[in-house]
């Protein structure tokens, strides 16, 4: 109060007048607004956190589609790619020695005896490179593989056509994703159909009918669509 011009009588009388108050509803509205103004706002996420969910979903979708396409491609039959080599118009499928070895190892695991491989290594050191035993032979067929290898003159690895490598790669990759075909793939990697048939023919000529029949069965597994020569039917 301004003491300089204070009039106690007037002031006292004024305070005795109606003490008018603001309506309660007005009080409530103002206090609610005041509380709301200082209410802590929900913490905002960083911009990169806001993108976490959509980016995660997008990555999942891309990964799923990619895997689906890869699986579909890998499930395509192996033979249609290997079969054209049998028509003779193209160079026979040849496999680089290292890859053939790897495929054979994969095919005969775990039953193949080590002796077969050691013998192959030994022969490799002695002379021309020979394709390893047919993978499908497995443990029981290992002796036959030895026979076949000794009977068929193999090309030197360096002389194998260069374009055969991608085919072998494709075959090898399919082998990994389709374990049930390991044997057939091993056989396909091991030799060209003509060579294989020649081996079977020689087995027959040597009177080894049982081994010839087994080898022929393996051949049919590997090349079910291949038209057999009349003398081997």
């Amino acid at each position, binding site marked *: *109060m*301004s*003491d*300089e*011009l204070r*009039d106690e009588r*007037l*002031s006292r*009388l*004024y*305070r*005795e*007048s*109606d*003490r*008018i*108050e*603001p*309506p309660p509803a*007005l*009080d409530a*509205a*103002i*206090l609610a*607004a*005041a*509380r709301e*103004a*200082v*209410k*802590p706002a929900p913490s905002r996420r960083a911009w990169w956190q806001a993108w976490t969910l959509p980016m995660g979903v997008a990555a999942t979708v891309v990964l799923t589609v990619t895997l689906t396409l890869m699986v579909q491609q890998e499930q395509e039959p192996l033979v249609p790619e290997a079969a054209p080599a049998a028509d003779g118009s193209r160079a026979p499928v040849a496999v680089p020695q290292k890859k053939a070895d790897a495929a054979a190892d994969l095919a005969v695991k775990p039953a193949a005896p080590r002796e077969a491989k050691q013998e192959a290594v030994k022969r490799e050191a002695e002379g021309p490179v020979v394709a390893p035993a047919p993978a499908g032979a497995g443990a029981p067929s290992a002796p036959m593989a030895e026979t076949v290898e000794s009977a068929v003159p193999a090309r030197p690895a360096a002389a194998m056509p260069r374009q055969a490598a991608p085919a072998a790669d494709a075959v090898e990759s399919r082998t990994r994703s389709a374990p049930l075909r390991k044997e057939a793939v091993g056989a396909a990697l091991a030799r060209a159909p003509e060579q294989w048939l020649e081996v079977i023919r020689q087995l027959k000529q040597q009177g080894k009918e049982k081994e010839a029949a087994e080898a022929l069965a393996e051949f049919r597994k590997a090349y079910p669509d291949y038209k057999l020569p009349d003398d081997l039917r």
Partner: protein
Amino acid sequence: MHEGMSDEALMQAYRDGDAAAFEALYRRWRSRLYRYLLRQCGNAGFADELFQDIWLKVVNARKGYAVAAKFSTWLFRIAHNRLIDHYRAQGRAAIVSYDDDPDDADAVAALPARAQEQPEVLIERKALAQELVKHIEALPAAQRETFLMSEEGELTLEEIAAATGVNRETAKSRLRYALKKLRTGLKELK
């Protein structure tokens, strides 16, 4: 918790996020400010609207609040400015004669002769107080405002001058005229 705190400390606490501090501050000043507005605009509807606007201005201005003056001076300055806007919007130029105080004798003469209209009620003091209010409401706006700031806001002349944007002498002159008219009016009632 907030009982012993000054108005300025409460406002600072509210600025820093203490909603309860605002409530304590509001409780201290709500009635005084409301009466100031009601006496000034003479209409409960307008008073409600102005009252809410002023407090929301306080709420919204909390972040920039600094103790440069008493809280009451700041509050009544906001109220004063809001009233000016209200008067302009209402086209009440004649009422908002802030710059020119009418002649004292003319103002007294212009007071309604309510004493003669209700002689039996004037015996009671309560009725006298109500008549005083009517005289207050009949004061020129600037004088009424100065008187109400002095009574309701308990502001000094310097604070009234700061709140209304005039110098101290003008505020003093307005208050002197207001008191004189009210005294005259009360004498007429007796």
